């Protein structure tokens, strides 16, 4: 009997989690301006109309640029931190690593407001760069988590073997370390990109006159006739995000398998 209740609970839980997202594509293809049942006919016109809004294109480009900059920077920083934390002992290592990981649980609104205050006080202008800085802050902990598991599953004696066989520390990094943690790097880039692309609160506080895609979408919600277009856009974003995340997880797992280690992290079960 117990099993049946648990199953019902699981189904309800998943429904609650995913039904709203499932509504996105339904209304994106619905031939009516009003978001309500019963549905009208099937149409692709909202997707076509997406292509006719220049402001949206600008926002999308902004988002992609910001996500690319943030994920690359966070991955570089994450690699340095992961390397240091898995290789070396240094004083106060645990507290330092703890503080670096903190943004993972810090409310984004706090991060957003504090950064806004600091940037304005410092007399700087809000731009792409302020958003990029904010996104680096929240993406770096994810990069560290992914790359730490990649570095930790790397057998130290592989690098020693390369040095023993005549390579310098730098060429060892290039010939052995880098190829073996590459799946982790790709995974970190993809996840960082996805997080930055979807992020709203920090982008909302820190964007100047050039909004990112989520901020643009938020602005458009004031116009009811635009909502189906937003639904179409949302559908594309969801599909893109899922694709990126699955690819990222694929690379992370392949990396651990290749380095012959045990799986000890990751975000997707």
């Amino acid at each position, binding site marked *: 009997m117990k099993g049946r209740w648990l199953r019902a609970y699981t189904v309800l839980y998943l429904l609650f989690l995913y039904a709203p997202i499932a509504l996105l594509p339904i209304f994106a293809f619905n031939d009516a301006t009003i978001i309500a049942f019963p549905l009208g006919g099937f149409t692709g016109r909202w997707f076509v109309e997406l292509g006719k809004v220049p402001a949206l294109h600008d926002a999308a480009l902004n988002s992609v640029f910001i996500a690319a900059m943030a994920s690359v920077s966070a991955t570089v920083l994450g690699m340095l931190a992961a390397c240091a934390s898995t290789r070396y002992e240094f004083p106060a290592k645990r507290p330092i690593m703890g503080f670096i990981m903190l943004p993972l649980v810090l409310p984004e609104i706090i991060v957003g407001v504090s950064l806004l205050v600091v940037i304005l006080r410092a007399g700087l202008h809000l731009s792409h760069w302020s958003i990029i800085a904010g996104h680096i802050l929240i993406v770096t902990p994810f990069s560290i988590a992914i790359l730490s598991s990649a570095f930790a599953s790397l057998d130290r004696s592989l690098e020693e073997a390369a*040095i023993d066989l005549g390579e310098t520390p730098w060429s060892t990094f290039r010939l052995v370390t880098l190829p073996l943690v590459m799946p982790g790097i790709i995974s970190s880039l993809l996840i960082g990109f996805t997080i930055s692309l979807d992020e709203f609160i920090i982008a909302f506080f820190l964007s100047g006159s050039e909004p990112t895609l989520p901020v643009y979408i938020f602005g458009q919600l004031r116009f009811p006739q635009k909502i189906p277009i937003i639904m179409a856009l949302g559908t594309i974003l969801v599909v893109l995000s899922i694709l990126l995340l699955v690819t990222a997880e694929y690379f992370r797992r392949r990396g651990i398998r290749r380095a012959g280690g045990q799986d000890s992290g990751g975000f997707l079960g």
Partner: protein
Amino acid sequence: MADPIIQLENVTKRFDDFEALKGVSADIREGEFFSLLGPSGCGKTTLLRTIAGFEAPTSGQVRIAGQDMAGVPPNRRPTNMVFQSYAIFPHLDVAGNVGFGLRRSPMSAAEKARAVDEALEMVGLAGYGRRAAHALSGGQRQRVALARALVLKPRVLLLDEPLSALDKKLREQMQGELRRLQRQVGITFILVTHDQEEALIMSDRIAVMFEGQIAQMANPEMLYRRPVSRRVAEFIGVMNFLPARVTASSPAGIEVEIAGLGRATLSGDSHAEAAPGEPPSVGIRPEMLTILFGNEPETGRVAEGEVREVVYYGDMTYYEIAIDGAPGTVTVSMRNLVNRPVLRRGERTRISWDERALILFR
């Protein structure tokens, strides 16, 4: 005798507050098969890594081919290492692994490919070049690691417990192959092992290490027959110890009174160190005690006792025998022959021995 290829002079290594090497000195000769033998944690790997250049000695000197190695990184030393984990590069195939160290060599691509093939052939993996690293068995990984190090023709090959991960059959086979390979290439091998039998079988010379120090350095036969301390004697093979009292000592010989065996005169050089605080004892190996079956005539000295335990190995039988007048039991090994019965527990028996086989520990 050739000049030493490796000279260790009073090498110490300190990790924080732990001293892993406490003044190790040794000369290792060109072309010899040298083993570092000792229990786990005694500093064998640390010493090997110090020779390879992965650890810098806290004090003392490592010289290779007459040159002081202080400040010389591993990639610039004429040594190569076979790691305990083998450290096969998982992203490269077998040929990629074996040829890894040739990347910087001035050889042409064709010459490199030939060198790789030769190395693979040498370790019995001819034709395996395109195999993926993860598709190899434990024994094959070990051979790839060997080929990868040997292809560079180092002056010294360092091996850290290369056989400990293999099962017994394969291990015994590889022991023979490593020995053959060493003779064939003529390179100095330094083998780290905690397995005394492996060290005895394979080595020209063995250094027995305890707690960061070399206790004895000798060839296998000397090590077995003339251990310098009770600790070494206990670590190498099996030795029986009987309480003993020294009654007279002169340059000509030492007179002892041995529990269960009686009076004996030992030559002046057959004595070794007892463990600190231990009373003196006399040691004798199991094969140096001979059971006299039925009414076999006595040869040499004879003691009597009762069989307490019988362990039958097929080719040999090991007996635990309580000798009259001695505490505990002694181990006696006898080869099984056509006309030799196997004794039962509880039987009484005579044991013959010779005083030349005795070592006094005091």
